[in-house]
Structures are given as structure tokens and as C-alpha cells.
């Protein structure tokens, strides 16, 4: 029996402290928490910075380090600092050092880095070690070298190696969401299908229960399957909430691909042990012939400057599409005549179909609209220059030549807001490895008083 306590779906999201204390009282063998995901977009991998505030992360990490000290078991975080890029791992290591010093703890920390060197990846591509998933963007050696960050998603083997150092805390770069939970039950001989399936159910904390915001959940793994027990006072796990969690953010509700194989839950059975606990058996782990790890990469995709104009005058609101088309055409023509370099200008009508665009055939317009203009260009200066050319059109452009000059509402001065560099995800590929540790770097640190 291996018990893994999961305090929350992601460090920084918050959790119920009383539920965490109940979880610690259950004497878990490991505390595991996810530190990120790709879900907030490519900026975080592109820059290696955290989505959540440092203060929030520090406060929650302090509580988890305290829970670890009470439970006297390892604390593991995967995908540290939102993206799991090396800089994001260093950021959390710094926070951990601060907390250890402030609370007088002496700790061994294992640091697992997942960052990949662009040149090494270009060479791996040339040697046929990188293969596309579907759908995958076209890639080249130059593109791999141009990525600001590439990470490989570690699986159970790499987390097991980190735990084997005897570390009190494991701070890992990019890992699969499940690997930080499945690693220990797998190395202790629990059922492999159950280990991965239980890890998938637990990876979002209490999301697989009737009270997701309570956060804390305990998964107890054994030789045939696992038991899900929520730690929130009012939270219940039911066969429905547990089995339905396989749907969540998963393109296939039965299969989950991991380094070294895949999980198949087609034949899983979900049984209520009582009104709040569920036992799951029958999950299968299917090993693969080749050991592969998924890659994620982000590259810079230009610079953006955005502006927002608000239109309230009824005749303009009514004719807003024609107005936007005219503004875009005139501004583009003027900019093409005066600037060098590539740019694009897009106007989205907030209050009509800014969310879904042409797919939203039933969109209706209300008493006002916002016009969100987005200039994307090769350089920061060019994106700002084009946005400044756009400015007078957004403020004063008339629907026809023979009418008084209108003035629309700018909520800000300056009207242009620089978004800086923008990034895009450019890899949906896997990297073949001879040894699971080949793409990863493990080190240990002694920190604190």
C-alpha cells in the first residue's frame, strides 16, 4: 500500500489548510503537487517565468514544507514555476532556500532539470530521434535552435531517480502531470495500471470530487488498483466524479500516453466504498517498445502592441463592421507607405464576436462595442509605430466624408499598450531515449540552517 497526498491541482491555486492537516494525519508516504501546465499559454514557457505571484507560491509552498516536516515524507513538485523550464526551477529553488532559512529547516533537495539545448535537439532531429505527434507543426534544426525554451516531459523513472537520492524535497522541471504521483507506487510494486490511473484522477487535486475547491485528495495505491479519498470535509468522490475525470483536458477519455507506455482504462471498474470513497480496479498499463518523452517548445513570434477604443454612438455601433474594415484598410495602406518590415493589424469587436470570430454566426451587438486592435510586427518599435499610425483612426474616423468628425472613447493614455514579445508553442513531438535519464539532469543540494 502506497499513499500519496495531493494538496491541490497546482501550487498557487490555493487549498483548504484543514483538509491538508487531515491528509497529513492519514500518514501519507509522499506529498505530490503540480507546479504548472501549458494551459495558460506559451508566454510562460517562452520566458521561463511563473504565472502565479511569488508571494502566493511562497505562502503555499511554506505550508506544504511544513506538512512534509510533520509527515516526515518526501515532498515532490513537478513542472515547477508554471513551465518547468530551467529558469522556473531555479526560481522555486530560490524560494525554497528562503523558506528553509526563515523556518530553520535543514533539507536535502533533489533538483531535476528538463530543459533541452536547442543545438542538441537539432542534432537529435537530424538523427531521426524526434518524431511528430498529430497534429504537429513543421520543424527544422533552425527552429529548434530559435526556441527560447524547450523542455522534455519526465515520467516516473526520472522522479524515482530523484526520490532515490533520499531527498526531503524534489523540485522537478517539466514532468507529466501524473508522473510525480505514480512514481512512488510504481517503485513500491503497486499495480502499474492502477498507479497511472490513480495519478490521473489525483493530478487535479479534488477536481475529481463533488467539491473541487477543497483541493486536497488522498490516493491509496495497492496491488490491484487504488482508492480515492477526498480530505475536504464536505467533498465526496463518487464513481461518477472519478470516472468522469478521465474526460477532463484529455482528448481521449480511455487512453493516456506517458513515457514508456500508455494507460488504458477501458475495462476499469469504479465501486463506491461508502458515500465519499471510490475504489478503482481493472486499469491497464501497456508498455511501449520505444521509450519516448514528449517535448514542448516555445519561440518568439514577434512583438505586439494593442489598443482599445470604445464606441457608444448608435449609428457607429450599428455599422461597426464596416467602420472596422475601413479603419483597417486605411491604416494598413498608410503604414505600408511609411514603415519597413512585416506587420499585421487585426481589429476584434468586443460585444459582437471577439471571443469566437467567424464561428459565432449568432453573435448580436448591444448598445456599445469595444474595438480591440492588435498590431503584431517583427520588432517592438515597428508594432508601436503601426499602433500610433492607427491611433487617429480609432479616435476620429468618420463613417462617411460628409459628416462631423466623431470622437470615440479611449480608456487609457497612451491608448497603445505594449505586450512586448509574444511566443508560440512550436513542438508537438516526442524524443526517443536509450536511457530515461539521458535528457534530464539530476543534482542534490543541502539547504537551510
Amino acid at each position, binding site marked *: 500500500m502506497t499513499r500519496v497526498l495531493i494538496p491541490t491541482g497546482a501550487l498557487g491555486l490555493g487549498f483548504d489548510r484543514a483538509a491538508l492537516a487531515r491528509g497529513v494525519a492519514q500518514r501519507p508516504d509522499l506529498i505530490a503537487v503540480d507546479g504548472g501546465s501549458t494551459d495558460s499559454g*506559451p508566454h510562460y514557457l517562452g520566458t521561463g517565468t511563473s504565472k502565479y505571484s511569488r508571494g502566493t507560491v511562497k505562502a503555499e509552498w511554506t505550508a506544504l514544507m511544513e506538512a512534509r516536516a510533520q509527515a516526515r515524507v518526501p515532498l515532490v513538485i513537478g513542472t515547477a514555476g508554471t513551465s518547468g523550464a530551467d529558469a522556473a526551477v531555479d526560481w522555486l529553488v530560490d524560494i525554497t532556500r528562503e523558506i528553509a532559512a526563515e523556518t530553520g529547516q535543514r533539507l536535502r533537495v533533489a533538483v531535476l532539470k528538463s530543459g533541452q539545448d536547442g543545438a542538441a535537439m537539432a542534432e537529435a532531429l537530424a538523427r531521426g530521434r524526434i518524431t511528430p505527434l498529430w497534429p504537429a507543426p513543421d520543424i527544422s534544426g533552425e527552429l529548434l535552435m530559435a526556441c527560447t525554451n524547450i523542455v522534455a516531459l519526465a515520467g516516473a523513472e526520472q522522479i524515482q531517480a530523484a526520490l532515490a537520492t533520499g531527498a526531503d524535497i524534489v523540485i522537478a522541471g517539466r514532468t507529466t502531470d501524473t508522473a510525480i504521483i505514480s512514481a512512488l507506487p510504481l517503485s513500491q510494486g503497486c499495480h502499474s495500471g492502477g498507479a497511472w490511473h490513480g495519478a490521473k484522477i489525483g493530478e487535479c487535486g479534488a477536481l475529481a470530487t463533488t467539491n473541487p475547491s477543497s483541493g486536497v485528495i488522498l490516493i491509496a495505491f495497492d496491488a490491484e488498483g487504488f482508492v480515492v479519498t477526498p480530505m475536504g470535509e464536505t467533498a465526496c468522490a463518487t464513481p461518477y466524479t472519478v470516472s468522469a475525470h478521465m474526460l477532463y483536458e484529455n482528448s481521449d477519455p480511455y487512453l493516456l500516453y506517458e513515457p514508456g507506455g500508455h494507460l488504458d482504462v477501458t475495462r476499469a471498474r469504479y465501486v463506491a466504498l461508502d458515500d465519499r470513497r471510490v475504489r478503482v480496479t481493472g486499469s491497464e498499463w501497456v508498455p511501449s517498445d520505444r521509450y519516448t518523452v514528449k517535448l514542448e517548445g516555445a519561440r518568439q513570434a514577434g512583438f505586439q502592441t494593442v489598443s482599445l477604443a470604445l464606441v457608444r454612438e448608435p449609428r457607429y455601433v450599428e455599422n461597426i463592421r464596416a467602420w472596422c474594415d475601413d479603419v483597417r484598410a486605411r491604416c494598413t495602406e498608410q503604414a505600408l507607405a511609411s514603415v519597413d518590415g512585416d506587420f499585421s493589424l487585426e481589429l476584434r469587436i468586443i460585444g459582437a464576436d471577439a471571443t469566437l470570430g467567424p464561428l459565432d454566426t449568432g453573435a448580436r451587438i448591444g448598445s456599445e462595442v469595444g474595438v480591440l486592435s492588435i498590431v503584431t510586427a517583427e520588432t517592438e518599435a515597428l508594432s508601436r509605430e503601426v499602433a500610433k499610425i492607427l491611433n487617429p483612426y480609432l479616435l476620429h474616423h468618420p463613417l462617411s466624408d460628409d459628416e462631423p468628425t466623431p470622437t470615440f472613447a479611449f480608456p487609457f493614455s497612451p491608448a497603445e499598450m505594449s505586450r512586448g514579445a509574444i511566443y*508560440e508553442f512550436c513542438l508537438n513531438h516526442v524524443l526517443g531515449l536509450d536511457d530515461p535519464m539521458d535528457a534530464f539532469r539530476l543534482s542534490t543540494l543541502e539547504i537551510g540552517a
Partner: protein
Amino acid sequence: MTRLVDIATKVRSKNAGPFWLTFDIFCDTPEVFARVCEALSSERVAAMLHTDAASLKRFEIADLNVLKFSLPRPYVQGTRLDRDMHGASYANLLAEMDIN
């Protein structure tokens, strides 16, 4: 005229990684589930999303009364033309479809 939102318990959409979008339609009875499965052919849903049915994965999960669709994201998450970073708004398009 009945829309999906009038008979389904919940309709949601979400990213499944940066390259995929997935829709889950929860129904509370096998009858509603059967009606939804019949009304929402893969061809119809694909046309609404301006894609072809061949790129749509369809799962009819009778144990949960859930119909699920997954497809490559219309625009890769966070690229210049993507309007919805988390992909959750696409559910509204499905929720507003007619169910006859």
C-alpha cells in the same frame, strides 16, 4: 425549438494540451443522451466548427451519459489568431445548437 443547453446537464470545452480542443456534453438520463447523440452527428458538429468530420474524434460514453468530441485546435493555443487561451468559450457554440 430546443437547443442543446436546454436538455444537457453541462456542456464544456477545454484545451487538451496546446494542440487539441475537447468538448464534453453531460446528460442526466440515457434518453437525453441518446437524443443528443442522434442530433449531434460528427458531420454537423464539424461543420459548425468549420472543420471536416474526419478530424473529429467522437466518444459516446454510455456509462456516464456523456458525448465527447476532440479535434485539433482551430488555431494552436496562444498563436496570433487564437482568441481563447483556455478554449472554454467554444462550448457556447455547441450549447446553442438546435436539437430536434
